[in-house]
């Protein structure tokens, strides 16, 4: 693709995050990361884990971009923008300089054709903004679910698009590569972005889709403790029915997902997932009914269907749901007893 066109220059910076989205990205497969970038005609100007240039060599590269000597097509930021303490940005100084990293991020965002927030930290503030947000972390164009952030709600990069928020904690490698591909093919426009400017290529789906526990979900056969096989929505805090991502149709590290790993979805692609207001692994309930039911289904219907299906739960599911391995296998026919 794009063989006769100029490759797109990509600069990847990190700020107030953990580097986990990069670690996830370099685990890309079929094809691997280097071939994936080649296939979408991306030229990596610099990446913190991969590039040779260090220190003054990076600072010179940034100066050349600022001076217009090198064109910046895509700026990726991983990690929150750090505004603290007291709005000074000094909790993250760009090493080798005296200036806050925030200032370089802003300067480069104004120069880049496209600006990508990689991960929920760069998009919304994310886990770094948890608790009392001691580092005054925010996203590039959001502060939690409020638009604004570092660049302001009216910001558009030179391409005319707002910051593209590839949210997730971490991001799946393909979410990034496919977004880059859409950009490279000039297929990215506002219709490709959702209400939080996340790529709809993965947020039009729910984590619930293809959850291997969906039979337990259908019959409300629920897990009660960690390592149980049952549905984790009723008791274990699972948000897979409202979380927008394709984690169970597009697996992680070859064969995994949070649900497949036996633990709850914590809705990490959503703004403010870091502060659910309750313990992550316990479902908050009112009068025994979990709050946070599927958003686009009338609650009364859900409750009615749930109690019906609960009454119809096969013994197999009821027993397996609270065991850590299958204790009753599917049979062709079970005699009524």
């Amino acid at each position: 693709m794009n063989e006769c066109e100029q490759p797109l220059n990509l600069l990847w910076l990190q700020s107030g995050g953990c580097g986990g989205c990069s670690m996830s990205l370099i685990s890309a497969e079929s094809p691997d990361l280097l071939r994936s970038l080649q296939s979408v005609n991306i030229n990596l100007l610099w990446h913190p884990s991969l590039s040779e240039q260090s220190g003054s060599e990076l600072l010179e590269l940034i100066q050349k971009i600022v001076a217009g000597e090198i064109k910046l097509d895509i700026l990726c930021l991983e990690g929150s923008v750090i505004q603290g303490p007291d709005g000074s940005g000094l909790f993250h100084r760009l090493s080798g300089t005296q200036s806050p990293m925030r200032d370089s991020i802003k300067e480069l965002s104004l120069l880049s054709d496209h600006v990508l927030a990689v991960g929920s930290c760069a998009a919304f503030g994310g886990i770094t903004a948890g608790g009392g947000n001691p580092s005054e972390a925010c996203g590039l164009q959001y502060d939690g679910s409020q638009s604004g952030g570092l660049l302001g709600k009216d910001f558009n990069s030179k391409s005319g698009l707002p910051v593209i928020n590839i949210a997730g904690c971490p991001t799946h490698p393909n979410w990034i590569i496919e977004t880059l591909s859409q950009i490279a093919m000039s297929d990215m426009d506002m219709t490709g972005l959702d209400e939080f400017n996340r790529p709809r290529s993965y947020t039009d789906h729910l984590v619930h889709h293809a959850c291997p526990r969906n039979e337990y979900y259908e019959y409300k056969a629920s897990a009660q403790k960690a390592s149980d096989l049952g549905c984790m929505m009723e008791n274990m805090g699972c948000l897979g029915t409202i979380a927008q991502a394709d984690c169970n149709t597009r697996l992680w590290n070859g064969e995994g997902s949070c649900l497949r790993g036996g633990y709850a979805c914590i809705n990490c692609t959503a703004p403010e997932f870091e502060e659910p207001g309750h313990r992550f692994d316990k479902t908050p309930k009112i009068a025994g009914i979990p709050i946070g039911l599927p958003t686009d289904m009338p609650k009364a219907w859900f409750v009615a269907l749930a109690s019906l299906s609960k009454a119809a739960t096969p013994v197999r599911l009821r027993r397996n749901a609270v065991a850590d391995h299958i204790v009753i296998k599917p049979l062709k026919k079970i005699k009524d007893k």
Partner: protein
Amino acid sequence: MSRRIIGPFNRVEGDLEVQLSIEDGLVTDAWVVSSLYRGFEQILQGKDPMDALVYVPRICGICSVSQSVAAANALANLQGLTPPPNGEIATNLILANENLADHLTHFYLFFMPDFARDVYQKESWFPAAHARFKAIKGTACQEVLPARAEFLHLMGLLAGKWPHSLAIQPGGTTRSIEIQEKSRILSILFSFRQFLQQTLFGDQLENIIALDSADALSNWLERPESSRSDFGHFLHIADALNLETLGRAGEQFMSYGVYPEQGNPLFSMGTWNGTYNELDHSLIREDISHSWMKFQNEPKHPFDGVTIPSVDSPDGYTWCKAPRLNGQVMEVGAIARQVVNGHPLIRDLVSKNGSNVRDRVIARLLEIALVVPAMEAWAKALKPKEPFCSHAKLPDDVEGYGMMEAARGSLGHWLKVKNGRILNYQIIAPTTWNFSPRDAEGIPGALEQALINTRLQGDRKGDLSKDEKMPVEVQHIVRSFDPCMVCTVH
């Protein structure tokens, strides 16, 4: 004399700056600056203790599982909980998967590309090093990324995903493994072993493990297959550049022990200063005299540690605190783990040259060879129909700790719980030890010591008046520790 500021470093995890005093090409003093503060210890205050399992892995995307294991160990310590055998094994497999993937990433992606820098282009070994290890373009990078990604399929199977899994619990793991998955795990390990034996070592892992002295290592390198391997390639470059004389730190090593097998660690807990000593972790203190921190008048044990950042602290030059064991600077990491555990090759190397750039790398690669057979044995010992997780109630008022070895060294979590909420959560990470600033006595941390007295070769034409902006020796020394800066300050 000039004070030179070097940064930002890449091919380290997170943000790092180094400041050097240089006189006639000799480093006379060094200051290590961790330049990012996020405040996880503050974020955790007031949370439900179990929520630590969500927050702490997100301290670091490369040591994510290590942070999970330290937190799970601390919570298990609060609850008096012991995982069932399957839970212990599955946790070991997940942790070993991360630790070995990190060692591999360090060697191929972070450390070796510096030998393909133009500064070395006049060296006879340069063309081969350039072809093999050049960042992004070298053949090694293209081979190792797929091998690493396939190895991390163990995470998909055992932990759901990497990084940032919630599979690791105080009582074991959430993911019970069935018989077919046990065989998948063994297949993935087999494939990884093939990669290591064909590409990294050019030899059976068992023959690497059996190397028991510096002489044995020299003899091994005589084999043509050894010489052609990436390990052999590194040893030749190390010889040519005398890397065993570069980056020597103090002679004190520490390991918390890791990979419990029915409670007994595969790599033992202790310290080494020419002899083995038991580790009394009640003697750990964190000092903030040279940190951008306030409100802690004297060094404190982490149970009583205070984390309140302050840009105004007069002697501060980093967000990192200075941990000490009984007042001593400790080096941690694979070399410390293996010298403490008594591997004869590492004991011999350390007795000859202390810790240094070459031997830190050798210890890491040796550890890959040591752990893969252990993983194979663990996987075979999984019993699919038996439990993976135990359960207990968390007391409302209690304190506990979790100590373990991450790829980069000793990681500890100390927490106090009051009224069912986290009152204090203190973390000392491996690179907090290695990249610590000076303490109140003015004693520099391990990397600072390793940098002092380094002779810089200028542009390698002998023209020392032409200062290099990024002296390559400094880059080798810094990266030989495999620093993780996001863990360091957290």
